[in-house]
């Protein structure tokens, strides 16, 4: 039983000069941060929070770019006993008004006491605040105190208990920002212990390389807290830089002899397709022992493409791994591909679609290749439930439910949402899947969530944006994801009913929807499909039947091709 601050104090005492992480920035020399530097930088933020009158147990929102300020402020909040939560930074294409609205919606539910950001962003943040709301201080990254040695007897973070909430994690968009996953110290340590065991993580040998954003569970837990709290070396780069130069991941692995990375499925395709031979000169990937596919459905073809592209550079087939993970379980639920190669289950497509049973069959036409997500972690139990909540036998598709000693404390300030997510002690994931020989295969989603590039997107947020366009009516829009095998992820489609038949007016509306959605959510649409009145399918209670609309769209567009 321990807390983040206790563990950090121990590392600061035992191994102050050990390098904790290497921060990479394009065009700059790599910056090595030791545990001493980490704690001194964090202490500066803890003192600033103290000076601003922020109390332990209060929430602090961090709106900072990927880099040392973000790292120090996160652990600064922890040392002060406050609860950090990282909000994505404003990107250039997102409309400032939308960002403000998202921030206001986060503030209204989460009720943070402070926000830490950059001076140039202060006006933006203040514009989202109202007199009388919870935020008492906006702290600026350039005005924090200079780094200084922590006085552990004074730091309030040392007085937290393992059951206290240590951090909040949000997913994106208005809906996601109103549902912060609250995690306790104990839950995080229970997860790390079980996950460490599944990975055979060896802090003396392993090196984690990550480009993942820290506002997402995969980046925050697997690619940030796990290495720092287990004393495993972390090499970290910014997602903005990686997406513009994906070879940076491979160069970093080669340079630092990286052993472990986590990637959303699209990144396998992205790396395989966009990296040039000249970027790979001298790159040696033989140190990579596991590249773990996580946070969107695992695709067999994506693994094949990655392997083919990088095997000539030392990438080993047994390094392909997968995990099913979610913030509500801190991170990992299952892990596969570590002790043995990932299982690929070949099943009958028709039986799967019609009977919802995963029946093994011979490879060929009519077969589906399902990649296993591996076995549940030692502290996590997984069950497959029918629509009525009954446990289903092996190879029957149902909703994935889980139970563990590392569950969320709750959705922060949302007892209603917390109650909805559980059936007794079991957390209902909203994902469909099946179990076979003790391994989990995730096959789809019950919830309407869209996952693009590992990022969760709530369709209602996109529909609301589309409805703001003149000529589009409330309740007559449907947003959903469609498969994009080339990119290895989903694309977003919006269907909207319009009254006008004038092609020019329709084009104007379609452009308007594209712009409203992209600038309001930073999600690029693959297609805006305009239809006449009465096209959209509704449920019996008059609600948007997104899955049915998706089917109808796919059928119509296939006929047109």
């Amino acid at each position, binding site marked *: 039983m321990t807390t983040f601050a206790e563990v950090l104090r121990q590392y600061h005492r035992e191994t102050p000069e050990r390098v904790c992480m290497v921060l990479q920035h394009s*065009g700059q020399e790599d910056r090595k941060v030791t545990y001493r530097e980490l704690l001194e930088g964090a202490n500066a933020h803890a003192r600033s929070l103290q000076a601003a009158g922020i109390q332990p147990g209060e929430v602090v929102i961090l709106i900072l770019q990927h880099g040392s300020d973000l790292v120090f402020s996160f652990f600064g909040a922890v040392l002060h006993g406050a609860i950090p939560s990282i909000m994505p930074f404003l990107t*250039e294409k*997102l409309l400032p008004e939308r960002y403000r609205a998202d921030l206001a919606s986060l503030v209204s539910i989460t009720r943070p006491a402070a926000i830490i950001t950059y001076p140039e962003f202060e006006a933006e943040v203040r514009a989202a605040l109202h007199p009388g709301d919870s935020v008492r201080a906006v702290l600026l990254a350039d005005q924090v105190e200079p780094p200084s040695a922590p006085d552990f007897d004074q730091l309030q973070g040392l007085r937290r208990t393992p059951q206290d909430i240590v951090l909040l994690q949000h997913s994106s968009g208005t809906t996601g920002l109103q549902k912060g996953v609250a995690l306790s110290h104990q839950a995080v340590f229970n997860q790390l212990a079980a996950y460490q065991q599944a990975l055979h993580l060896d802090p003396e040998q392993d090196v984690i390389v990550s480009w993942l954003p820290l506002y997402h569970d995969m980046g925050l837990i697997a690619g940030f807290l796990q290495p720092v709290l287990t004393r495993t070396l972390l090499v970290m780069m910014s997602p903005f*830089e990686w997406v513009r130069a994906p070879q940076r991941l491979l160069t970093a692995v080669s340079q630092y002899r990286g052993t472990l990375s986590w990637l959303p499925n699209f990144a396998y395709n992205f790396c395989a397709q*966009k990296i040039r031979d000249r970027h790979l000169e001298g790159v040696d990937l033989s140190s990579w022992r596991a590249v773990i596919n996580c946070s969107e459905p695992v695709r067999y073809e994506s693994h094949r493409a990655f392997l083919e592209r990088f095997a000539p550079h030392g990438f080993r087939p047994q390094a392909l791994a997968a995990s099913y993970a979610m913030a509500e379980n801190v991170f990992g639920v299952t892990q596969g591909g570590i002790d043995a190669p990932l299982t690929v289950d070949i099943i009958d497509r028709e039986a799967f679609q019609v009977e919802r049973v995963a029946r093994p069959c011979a490879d060929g036409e009519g077969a589906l290749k399902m990649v296993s997500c591996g076995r549940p972690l030692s502290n996590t139990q997984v069950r497959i439930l029918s629509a009525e909540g009954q446990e289903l036998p092996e190879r029957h598709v149902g909703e994935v439910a889980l139970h563990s000693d590392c569950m969320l404390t709750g959705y922060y300030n949302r007892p209603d949402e917390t109650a909805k997510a559980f059936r007794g002690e079991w957390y209902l994931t909203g994902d469909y899947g099946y179990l076979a020989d003790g391994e989990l295969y995730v096959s789809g989603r019950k919830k309407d969530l869209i996952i693009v590039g590992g990022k969760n997107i709530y369709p209602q947020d996109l529909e609301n944006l589309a409805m703001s366009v003149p000529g589009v009516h409330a309740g007559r829009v449907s947003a959903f994801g469609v498969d994009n095998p080339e990119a290895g992820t989903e694309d977003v489609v919006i269907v909207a009913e319009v009254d006008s038949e004038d092609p020019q007016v329709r084009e104007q509306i379609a452009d308007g929807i594209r712009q409203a959605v992209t600038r309001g959510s930073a999600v690029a649409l693959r297609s805006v499909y305009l239809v006449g009145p009465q096209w959209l399918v509704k449920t019996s209670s008059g609600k948007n039947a997104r899955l049915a609309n998706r089917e109808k769209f796919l059928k119509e567009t296939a006929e047109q091709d």
Partner: protein
Amino acid sequence: MSDEMISQLADYIAKDILKQPKRSLRPDESLLKSGLIDSFHLVDLALFVEDTFNVHLDDSELNADSFDTLAALAELIQERQ
């Protein structure tokens, strides 16, 4: 020369990035700030520029401060040729 370059870039963006071959792009139309080109496609655009015009764009230049329109991108390319 510049007009031809702009039209080549416009064709590529409409067809391969936006997947709307009929879409016309004005030389002064915002590409990045407007969200028309997603960050996932910036690498493609840089590779296209490299292959077609033999000009290397550094990844640190793939942002709206360096170019946000076809005209600005064409100018950047011409400076390097």
